[in-house]
């Protein structure tokens, strides 16, 4: 019997000792700095490697120009990004049109700081599989051709991959119930929309034109299988939104300084060029909350803003 009990006794002793040592070490190793950290985040619409490079460089840039610690927190879900912003887990977020509106409505006082030059007139494209027999659409009222087709959106909260395409379909008499299967499918992302349309699983898909172009440029699209059939009219999309309490936490006028830092990114510096290139923009331009009123109205109409 003692032979069987020994390992147990030893293990108990070891564990207790270890736990003690650890808790002691834990006490002495408590964080010493109380400097606030600016936590930046982004809705997930890029590959992680690019996101990490992009936000790594941007964090360095902002950290230098604002003289505060900046940390990038990855989030993989649109709704989670909105909640994280509301709860103060993220301070400055690169939102899409719809998610930005949702975030501001849930966080009174939050401020739109900037958008890219391309965001003021952003567009989505409808792409179709060659075998579907769908031809390019010359005027919006021809969207009725899409009735009874299998259609894929991207993520359920995406402005360019769902909200605005659904809005333009509705404006031209195509409700979601008119689609094959009684509703659209959701591929989860712009890239996945291209994949499911190119494969023929879905006949039509709607996505962010910028993502479509970069996929075409990188040769990731087979032009013999999938092509653009319609481009939506322009609308406003992505933007930077800051939490209302930044001035309080980082000092008077901090929010304005963040805005200035974003607006002053230029391709003339090495890091600026890298960041702007990864964002796919020439520069950031100022934007206000009111610019997104139309998106909010569409969001309400389609039940995505409550």
């Amino acid at each position, binding site marked *: 019997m003692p032979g069987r009990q020994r390992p147990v006794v030893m293990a108990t002793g070891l564990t207790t000792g270890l736990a003690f040592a650890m808790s002691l070490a834990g006490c002495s190793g408590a964080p010493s700095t109380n400097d606030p950290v600016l936590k930046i985040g982004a809705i997930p619409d890029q590959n992680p490697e690019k996101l990490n490079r992009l936000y790594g460089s941007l964090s360095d840039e902002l950290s230098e120009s604002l003289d505060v610690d900046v940390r990038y927190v990855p989030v993989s879900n649109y709704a989670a990004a909105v909640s994280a912003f509301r709860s103060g*887990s993220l301070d400055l977020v690169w939102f899409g049109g719809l998610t930005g509106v949702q975030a501001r409505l849930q966080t009174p006082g939050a401020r739109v700081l900037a958008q890219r030059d391309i965001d003021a007139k952003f567009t989505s494209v409808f792409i179709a599989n060659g075998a579907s027999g769908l031809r390019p659409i010359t005027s919006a009222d021809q969207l009725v051709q899409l009735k009874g087709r299998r259609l894929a959106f991207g993520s359920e909260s995406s402005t360019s991959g769902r909200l605005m395409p659904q809005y333009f379909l509705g404006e031209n008499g195509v409700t979601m119930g008119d689609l094959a299967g009684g509703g659209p499918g959701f591929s989860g992302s712009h890239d996945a929309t291209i994949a499911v349309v190119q494969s023929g699983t879905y006949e039509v898909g709607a996505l962010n034109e910028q993502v479509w172009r970069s996929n075409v440029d990188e040769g990731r699209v087979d032009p013999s299988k999938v092509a653009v059939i319609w481009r939506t009219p322009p609308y406003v999309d992505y933007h930077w939104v800051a939490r209302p309490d930044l001035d309080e936490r980082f000092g008077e006028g901090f929010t304005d300084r963040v805005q200035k830092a974003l607006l002053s990114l230029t391709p003339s510096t090495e890091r600026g060029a890298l960041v702007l290139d990864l964002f796919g923009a020439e520069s950031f331009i100022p934007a206000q909350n009111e610019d997104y009123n139309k998106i909010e109205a569409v969001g309400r109409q389609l039940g995505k803003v*409550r």
Partner: protein
Amino acid sequence: MALQRRLKPAPVLVALAPALVVLPLGIVLLRDLHGGGVEQIGRFWLAALQPSLDPTLLKHQLAELQITALTALLAWSLSSLAGLLLGVLSSTTICSTLTGRRWPAVVLRRCLAPLRSIHELIWGLLLLQLFGLNGWVAVLAIVLPYSALLARVLADQLDQQELPALIALRCAGVPAVINLFTSLMPPVAAALRDHIGHRLDCALRSALLLGIFGLGGLGTELMLSLQSLRFRELWSGLWLMALLLALMNLVIRRLSARHGLLLLTLALPLVTLLWSHRLNHDLSLPRWIQGAPWPPWAQLRDGLTQAWVETPWLELVGRTLLITVLASGVAIGLPPLLRLIAPDDGPGRMLKAGWLLMRLLPPPLTALLLMLASKPTLAVAALALGLHHSGVMGLVLEDGLERVDGRHQQAMVALGAPRRSAWLFGVLTPASRRYLAYAAYRSDVILRDTAVVGLVGGAGLGWQLMEALSSFHWPQVGWLILVYAVLTLLGELASEQLQERA
């Protein structure tokens, strides 16, 4: 006398019968199959052989993997401890021995049911609303349903034991507490150890899934890679996860053989707290985030009524149940069926590797792969879910088969029975009962998991819930969770009834 007994199907038939759903599913899939996605699917599997070895990526993924592991370990140890305590408290045998009354245990048991009827993912997204992006959100999201589930398993085990020893000792005047330890604990301990060990594996996969839906760790990285179809980066993460799963299983096996499991669960919380410190992972005490104030009652009532009226419940519930039944059929029926086709050890090992792979691929990924090859139908959603869980069930079956004493089979073969029949009656049949008991729990899990395959053409309650959550439509979220809870409880009641009759 014999005529008066009701005919009961042999357990082995019950285990095999669910595989019948493979037939209609197969027909639908064959009809909808297309070759358009071959290139992408090929790219995916090729990427498995040449995952990205970029050092910065690997370093990053390793750090994220540690967060996933830490979350899982902490959640597992806390839920094991809480589950043991709650299980003992909700056992009617223990309660009536100690207090002479049954009802406190029954009440507690019913109170725990809603906790376990909600998927950890939904817990995660709800807790995220309350506490923001804090490490404890993911931990708690796993702890809540897991401890309630363990409590149920333990209470079931305790209450199903034959009682003569208990009664005999009580009559002999042994004090109640000592009596319980002596007569109840030993027979329960082995089954419980298996279950707790198995839950670590589940906790790891849950932690990964929570990450996929935005709560940090390796899952977040995997989801971002998947969304941008970077399969090589995706596979680096998947292989790392596979290594972790294998390592954990090894540790659990070693420890449970040496009675170290309880010690591990006790020591883990302290170790993980320190570990999180090194990883810069926020495990500080979660702070309640003040949300918007509750609307006045009249407005709330109107909101709830409107949400109830505008939701097509019949269709949603119908689709969800159909997916659950089909997916459970695949998950429960496929492993014994395939094993019956290939009862030898060689193919058996290959099957086991297949199950490990199925279990490794998160359901959203399986769904996307299937969708590249077939039109989006309910069958695809069901198959994606079914295949993932068949991985889990396949491993449970293999584990059960390994424990079966081979003498019956040898005897049958020696008497001239065909090899396959000998395997069916000599090996699979004795292993079936345990397998089926486990299958009942698994179909509960599958019902809750329908929340994660929303991808496929607006399929059921799960999709609606994701849509409501992303629209921050709280009245509808509330109803959906309630309906989910009711369905889970009904499912449980049904499986209890079936088990009692069997």
